[in-house]
């Protein structure tokens, strides 16, 4: 399959989302998995194994093509410390997607494939004139990974696999208002990330018909923007000479994720998965922008993030009701990487609890998957004192609460 075609598909479907996992991570890579709380590292369900555990790909019976798309609908409320007015996002729907094609001999020991998915992203548009306008008004973060993958079954119980993880497309658009003594200006930073390469590797072990385990690791990629565009609007003439920058550089870590998964198959109809993900968010220390010329007297801006590594626990299962219909359910608990006093409007994050449902119907070589997720991000309050204590007064005090609904749809065709 031609990678240009895949990118074209990526362009057609917006790749961003309000992050569906902690920080700005998105874990919506397989429609079947989406219905099962996002488990998959210890399973060999379908071609999406390329994302969850490349080592399991060789154990996937079918070869085929599958595509999935999700509609991320986030609803957020914010009230400033001491305030009474609730601010809500200017709502937007974004559509993270996934696309897989798997090949290989019917009875052979190997499988190859290519995966396209959107592992990181975020899009938030805050209410006009909201209290945090000088921290952020709008953010759009997009990433598309393309991953050629190869998996080999060493024995009929043990298989390994790896993929070359290519950051094929990445972009950031960040906007905020500039506080001037008698008005607000506006700055927009817009840039594309350079192409970078990482890897996704895994091992899958299935000692019996009733049990399987897997481990996988996706490496960190630093999304690096060089020479992104800086533009200013509404800066009145008295201050125009202080806002001269036209270009910026910035780096955003897309952190490494290590996962451990367990699959339990008590009978032929029932499959249960348990996953733990460990995301090395602690690599995200500061968000720094370097400018070619001054922005209000400085050629850079730096804002503390000080993220901490975070664990996600997932559980999910599927039950084959009839030969055509399979139903799924699951849930997850996602610990936030954002420490108290460090919450920023671009990731109004906290621990998340999600519940998922899903179903598949197959007829012949075609299959249709639907999934639905409800994510509740716990209410999070930070006070002015928290900000003063941590030296993070570039953001605002107040309370955030976010819920996300993510319906998704997938189609697959098996050779």
């Amino acid at each position, binding site marked *: 399959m031609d990678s240009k075609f895949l990118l074209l598909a990526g362009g057609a479907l917006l790749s961003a989302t309000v992050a569906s996992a902690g920080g700005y991570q998105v874990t919506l890579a397989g429609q079947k998995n989406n219905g099962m709380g996002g488990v998959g590292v210890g399973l060999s369900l379908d071609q999406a194994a390329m994302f969850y555990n490349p080592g399991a790909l060789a154990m996937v019976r079918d070869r085929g093509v599958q595509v999935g798309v999700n509609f991320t609908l986030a609803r957020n409320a914010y009230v400033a410390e*001491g305030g*009474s007015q609730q601010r809500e996002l200017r709502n937007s729907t974004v559509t993270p997607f996934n696309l897989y094609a798997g090949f290989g001999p019917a009875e052979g020991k190997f499988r190859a494939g290519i995966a396209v998915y959107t592992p990181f992203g975020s899009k938030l548009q805050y209410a006009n*004139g909201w209290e*945090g306008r000088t921290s952020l008004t709008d953010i759009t973060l997009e990433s598309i990974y393309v991953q050629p993958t190869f998996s080999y079954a060493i024995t009929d119980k043990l298989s390994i696999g790896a993929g070359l993880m290519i950051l094929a497309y990445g972009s950031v658009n960040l906007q905020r208002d500039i506080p001037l003594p008698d*008005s607000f200006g506006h700055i927009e930073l817009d840039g594309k990330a350079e192409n970078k390469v990482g890897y996704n590797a895994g091992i899958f072990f299935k000692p019996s018909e009733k049990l399987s385990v897997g481990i996988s690791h996706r490496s960190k990629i630093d999304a690096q923007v060089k020479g992104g565009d800086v533009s200013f609007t509404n800066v009145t003439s*008295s201050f125009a000479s202080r806002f001269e920058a036209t270009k910026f550089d910035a780096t955003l870590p897309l952190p490494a994720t290590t996962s451990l998964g367990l699959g339990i198959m008590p009978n032929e109809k029932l499959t249960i998965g348990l996953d733990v993900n460990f995301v090395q968010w602690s690599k995200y220390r500061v968000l720094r922008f370097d400018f070619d010329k001054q922005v209000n007297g400085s050629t850079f801006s730096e804002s503390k993030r000080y993220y901490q590594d975070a664990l996600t626990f997932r559980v999910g299962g599927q039950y084959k009701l009839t030969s055509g219909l399979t139903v799924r359910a699951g849930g997850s608990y996602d610990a936030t990487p954002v420490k108290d006093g460090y919450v920023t409007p671009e990731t109004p994050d906290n621990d998340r609890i999600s519940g998922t449902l899903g179903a598949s119907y197959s007829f012949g070589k075609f299959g249709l998957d639907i999934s639905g997720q409800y994510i509740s991000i716990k209410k999070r309050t930070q006070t002015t004192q928290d900000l003063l204590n941590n030296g993070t007064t570039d*953001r605002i005090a107040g309370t955030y609460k*976010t819920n996300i*609904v993510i319906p998704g749809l997938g189609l697959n065709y098996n050779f």
Partner: protein
Amino acid sequence: MNTFLFRKSAPLVALLGLGLSACQPDLENDVKPSAGSVDFSRYIAVGNSLTAGFSDNGLYLSGQQASYPNLLAGQFRQAGGGDFVQPLFQAGQENGSGYLRLAGFTSTGSPITANVTTSLALRSGATAARPLYTKYIEPVNNLGVPGIRLSDIETVGYGSTAGNPYFERITPDAQATQTYLARVAASNPTFFTNWLGNNDVLGYATAGAAASFLTPIADFTDKNTKVINALTANGAKGLVATIPDVTNIPFFTTVGPAFKATLTTNNVPAVIITTGGFNTSLTGTPPTRRTIATSTIRDASGNGVQLFTLTSSPYVALFGRPNNGKAWRDVYNQARPSLPAVVTLGLFLQLQGVDTTQAFGASNGNPIPSTLVLDDTEQATVRSATTAFNAAITAKANEKGLAIFDANTFFTRVASAGIITNGVTNTASFISGNLFSLDGVHPTPRGYAVVANEMIKALNAKYGARIAEVNPNDYIGVKFP
């Protein structure tokens, strides 16, 4: 295939609509405003220029609209507050008394200010020396009167054409001789704020301790007691504010640091000033000279003790020039109305022992006039008065169980650390700090919003209320050209 997809997805989309309406989080119930034990239905604001919304050395419409009482009343309305009437200047006269505007900056970055003289509210019969403003005779909730001292509140005729033009403006003709205290006593509030007393130290301080006077503490205590008793007579709850230490305001902290830097660069070890009042009697002695070491002038970091007023800016630029009598000529012109007719400029200079042919500021013969400097001894006098006044204010408030906004503590903190409002840094610096207006004394709309929020915190804590704060960033700092 397509129709199949549609049939399958249509119920999904409908379900989605339901799911989404349930999805929107709602925090408003957590933060519903409430009045606690206060009845906000009739709020009366008592005070001086700060209460009136005075800014940029003038009282004008947009300053009035951003007065802290008006901002408070807007928030009280969410918790049972009633209408709040201010004596606003009307359209066409919106520039009120006139005010200072920022016209630009010199090549060295010093601000250039200019007077706004159009669309004023002056009425016929007014003169520059004794302005009178278009009357506002409807009942008002904001009784803030620019210039009023606590010592003035029992002065009969204070609201007459010979009195305070701002009080005269809101005094009905039928009660032309009503004192300020009587006006307050008749206001019948259910809730009040009282912030009087600033002018009992401020005028003395801004005149470099060379003019005006400090109200005696006994008089201050007596009148503070009277005004609080009048306000609480019907059981009203309220909030009082203390008097900030005036030495922290940009009026005293802006010129000195730059002057010190210039003197240091030019290796000038000291300057010569006069202290105390001027000599206005033929039998008196010239004012005392004092030598101030350059190193003792307070700089931007707060090192040093001697303060120069904002009004000294054009004069310190003349430092060291011989044959320069501008400073003393201006002192004479200001003092002339209260001088005996025989005192000409020449005689006045002779009485002060001034010889303007000598180098200005660098000689005993041509010293810097006392009005431009608040030296350390004078500051100590101002500070001890402020401390005593604040003790009186606090004691009376505690006796009546009132909320207290400790403006002194608050502005001292702002002077040292600034205040960050929703991610925006504000400081006590002149012009760039957002909080103080072009007169260096009165807050900007942003500054008044910050004051309103501090008052809200104090009264919420005292009365178990939950009045919401305003977003100070919605209010401007200094208006740029």
